[in-house]
């Protein structure tokens, strides 16, 4: 489902054109239904890799195929379309719209693919049901606990039925117990057939995945089956 060939990302910082090689030739294949963790210390390039896989950015060099489509050369609007259709993001800091209700936050991806409001609300409610938040749909993020917020974010990630769920340190801002709950939910999503990529530096979170990739200095250092 995901196939990258010799992926490079080089940033130029400041006016003096200092080049930072964030990724230096990454080859990666991910099959449908996999549960993958991308690990590595900070500065290893895992965030950069996530941005590329998540179609938020394009590589400096190399090719990236998502569902056999070459996305590495798409323009911003085409990427936006792919993000909307194929990818569900779960962020460490939740990234919910602060002034919108849980329901409206979950509706957001549907707004941008032109789903009609009736169907939109129906789908959003269903997604919230899947994360057990039926009784919280009219609450705003600041009226929800951290775990609840992350569940809203997960509902938003799955509402459009994406091929890939990208979770970037999903438990990073949560206490251990809540984090465990969220991971249980992620595990469940995987068991329901979703493809999941976790970006984390915590070994016990990565342990939920079935495959782990270790990045170091912009290269894949190790690629192992966990279970």
């Amino acid at each position, binding site marked *: 489902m995901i196939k990258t060939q010799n992926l490079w990302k080089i940033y130029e910082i400041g006016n003096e054109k200092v080049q930072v090689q964030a990724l230096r030739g990454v080859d990666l294949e991910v099959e449908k239904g996999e549960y993958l963790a991308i690990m590595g210390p900070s500065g290893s390039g895992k965030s950069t890799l996530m941005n590329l896989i998540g179609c*938020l950015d394009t590589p400096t060099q190399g090719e990236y195929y998502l569902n056999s489509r070459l996305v590495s050369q798409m323009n911003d609007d085409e990427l936006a*379309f792919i993000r*909307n259709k194929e990818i569900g993001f779960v*962020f460490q800091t939740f*990234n919910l719209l602060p002034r919108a209700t849980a329901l409206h936050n979950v509706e957001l991806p549907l*707004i*941008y693919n032109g789903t009609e409001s009736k169907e939109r609300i129906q789908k959003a409610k269903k997604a919230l049901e899947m994360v057990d938040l039926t009784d919280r749909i009219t609450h705003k993020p600041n009226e929800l606990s951290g775990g609840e917020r992350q569940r809203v974010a997960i509902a938003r990630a799955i509402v459009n039925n994406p091929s890939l769920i990208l979770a970037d340190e999903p438990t990073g801002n949560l206490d251990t117990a809540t984090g465990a709950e969220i991971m249980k939910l992620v595990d469940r999503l995987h068991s329901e057939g979703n493809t999941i990529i976790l970006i984390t530096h915590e070994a016990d979170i990565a342990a939920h995945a079935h495959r782990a990739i270790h990045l170091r200095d912009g290269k894949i250092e190790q690629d192992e089956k966990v279970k």
Partner: protein
Amino acid sequence: MQFLESIGVALKSLIANKLRSILTLIGVIIGVMTVIAVVSIIAGMNKYVADQISSLGSTTFFVDAGWRTIMSEEDYLKVLKRKEFTLQDMEAVKKGCPLCWKVGAEMVAYRKVKYREKYLSDVEIDGSTANITEISDINLSSGRYPSEFENLHNRRVALIGWEVADNLFPGQDPLEKDIKIGNYYFRVVGVAEKRGTFLGISQDNFVMIPITTFNKLFGTKRFLAIFVKVESFGSMQEAQDQVRLVLRARRHVPYDKPDDFAIMTSDTFMELYRNFTSTAFIVMIGVSSIALVVGGIVIMNIMLVSVTERTREIGIRKAVGAKKKNILWQFLVEAVTVALVGGLIGVILGSIIAKIVAATTPLPAAIEAWSVITGLIIATSVGLFFGIFPAVKAAKLDPIACLRYE
């Protein structure tokens, strides 16, 4: 649908940030308010003047040496050199113009008018032929007009304006009382109906006396104007030509020289008024529009702040699939909504101001549909114009940088 969504977001954020909204709106409110108030007052003045001028009637014109059309010092010096009309000229017009149904004349002077210890200085004294009351509208509130007979015999009778009656005879009947005009006594035979004010100048501060009496007591060289009424509008032009012919012959104007007098109709006055005021009005509207530009800049400023403040929101929206145009629209619709809300409030306040001005000053005001619609269109345009830069800036933001923004 996304459009409605954007309007909803805009209104919600307007309500959520009350103080900021008021500050944002205030620029547009003041701008639109000023424009609407100014335009309403101008429209009111135009309408009022048009009404006043048309009260002269479409079948009436008058002729003088040019005093009533002076627009510059040059005009003044030119008119000063011209010969004044006399009653003989009027008689000649009567004879030489078969299309002229009624021909009258009026002369003007300003004198002190006194009754016992009460007096008014600088009252307009009109020396008129008896038929002038049939040519231009002067309605009586009591008494009668000076008669043809009194005109023929230089009688000292007077028809007084409403304001003169009110000032000299408070609570009394002025009829058959003797007033003193300058140094001469006149008997009041009639009181005119109240005519109101025109641009703050009273239309009721006059005394009308027979023109023959006027000639005898106040002199003959007094801006005499010949008044002509034709039977139907169709013969206006031809009657004017006949009058022109008679007067040019009498004044010995060579065929290749322009008239040394002026023929005036209500159209002439309308044109004079327009020439005189149009530039001033354009300047007034222009100056009041400056507030709108300032209002637009305030919107732009606040929208830029809003884009920065909501960088993360932009990142989130982009991450879940918002395209550039979606973000562009959202911020543009917000700017236009803000401007339109400001515009609406401005229109309401502007109309109220125009009404207050009309009620408390001599200036009239007319709030017209087109000016309200124009006000709203202008507000929308201001929102669009000044909203586009912040919206483009928001649309161009990089989603990764936005998501990382603290």
